[in-house]
């Protein structure tokens, strides 16, 4: 933790003022340590930072999330607008909401 609730900047919204200001940084462990213990890391800029070791080899959390049916549907609709089908479309209606998008394992 960097600043406790009472030490924070004046004039910030109440929800923010009531929680600490905290920070995380990654680096090479200066000496081996266990998760949860106090440890030091040497950062990429060759500085030493200390604090509670919260993760070892922390996984990258950002991903692409779930597919968005809404975006897939409007993409398809705009393609139909631009390239009107030359034959009657066997599936003229597209789902509008919900979870009607999936994946199957093919079989013959």
């Amino acid at each position: 933790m960097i600043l406790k609730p009472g030490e924070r900047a004046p004039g910030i919204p109440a929800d923010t003022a009531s929680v600490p200001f905290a920070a995380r940084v990654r680096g090479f462990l200066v000496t081996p340590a266990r998760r949860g213990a106090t440890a030091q890391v040497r950062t990429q800029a060759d500085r030493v930072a200390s604090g509670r070791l919260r993760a070892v080899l922390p996984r990258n959390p950002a991903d692409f999330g779930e597919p968005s049916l809404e975006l897939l549907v409007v993409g398809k609709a705009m393609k139909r607008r631009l390239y009107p089908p030359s034959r009657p479309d066997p599936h003229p209606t597209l789902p509008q909401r919900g979870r009607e998008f999936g994946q199957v394992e093919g079989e013959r």
Partner: protein
Amino acid sequence: MSSQKYAEVMARRGAIMQRALGLDYDQFELEGGVAFDYEGLVGSPAYDLDAVRRIQADFKVGNTPLWELPRLSQLVRQTAPHGQGARILIKDEAGNAAGSFKARRASLAVAHAADLGYEGVVAATSGNYGAAVASQAAMRGIKAIILQEVFDSPWRGQPEILEKTRVCEAYGAEVWQVTVGPELFYWHLITLEETGFFNASLYTPYGILGIETLGYEIAEQCRDQFGRDPAAILITHSGGGNVTGTARGLRRAGADPQIIGVSVDLTGLHMASDRDFNRKSFTTGHTGFGFPFTVNPDRVDVPRNAARGLRYLDRYVTITQGEVFFATQLLAELEGLERGPAGNTSLAAALSIARELPEDALLVVQETEYTGAGKHPTAQLTMARELGIEVRIGDPRENKQGKRIVIADDIDQVQAVDIDLKGLRRSYLGRIADKRPNRSLSQEETQFLADETGVSRDEFAALWDEVARRPIVKAQA
């Protein structure tokens, strides 16, 4: 070691910044505390445009392609009045090192830091700029420390900013991920004080000069590739550097298109609120920065902001989150370009504004940025759903910030909304008037404020008259 108490660190801010910028801002201040020598400040870097272009070419920045988007133009024409539906062009800034136009700014800031002999640079930014600084510092062999606002108090990371952490670390930077709050600036000061590194702020003259090449290239490319000047340029607008630098570059090339700023409408969500933080599906190019920076540009980490949007904006529009996601999808599916969030803000507005212009007019979307995990609409929409925000297809007018994201269901549903620039000018001047109970301005201040608000002396006189008649409000800190 000096005290690290919040108030005491903030009190040292002037001295810390002076050392971390290598520039004395006092030399530009004019009598009275209102006006300063803006052209003197932006003109202070000792590089002409050719020198800037050379630095950028040496460090993998600039000369990005200007593509035409004929299928999007054709789609717009299907619902536009006869003879209307401009040719939409896009400047593919994702091709810069680190994947966005921010490399233009970083290339000069880091060049300057290296020239001055700093051992490293620090930037407090959750955006593409951090990646750009890290990438430029990597090429210069100097250290980079990037400070990012990433988490709310339950440690939920904003997906796009988590990706920014990854990319900055990929370029070898030390990255501090902090929780929501303006104390990011406090941590920035401590970091500068402890390291003695250069503050690679977005808002120095270097951060602006680097963007001028972007405006200049657009003018050149429109002339070379299409034989004419652009009618209008759409610029994703947040802190104002993008508008300022691009407009200045266009002027340098002798081009005078309409300068249109575009921000995602996030009105109603508080920028410093722990709760609202992850209820925003955009981390930049939105009204949460665009409005306050336009009205009060000096609320930044340097004494005077070189980015001053109101000087250059001819028009300012907003667009909803769902309309930007719609534009992002069409750019991929119809034009074969998968690009990132902020760049597509101005693209979404283009789908609306192209309808107003004749078919042969050139409408330039001034940038793209890279996309990837966390930056992608699917990552943002997944997060939004997890927080109980409704996502559906329909009329974007039904969008409700922080509650409902509506993906446009047809091309003519995309409609940019005009912001009253006069209202923003009045707010800007209201702040000044509050500091001047007797409402008197010197000649120098009058000229400065007319330039600041982007109006003629006559228009300014009328505006000031209106503002001066308001009751006197207690001066704000």
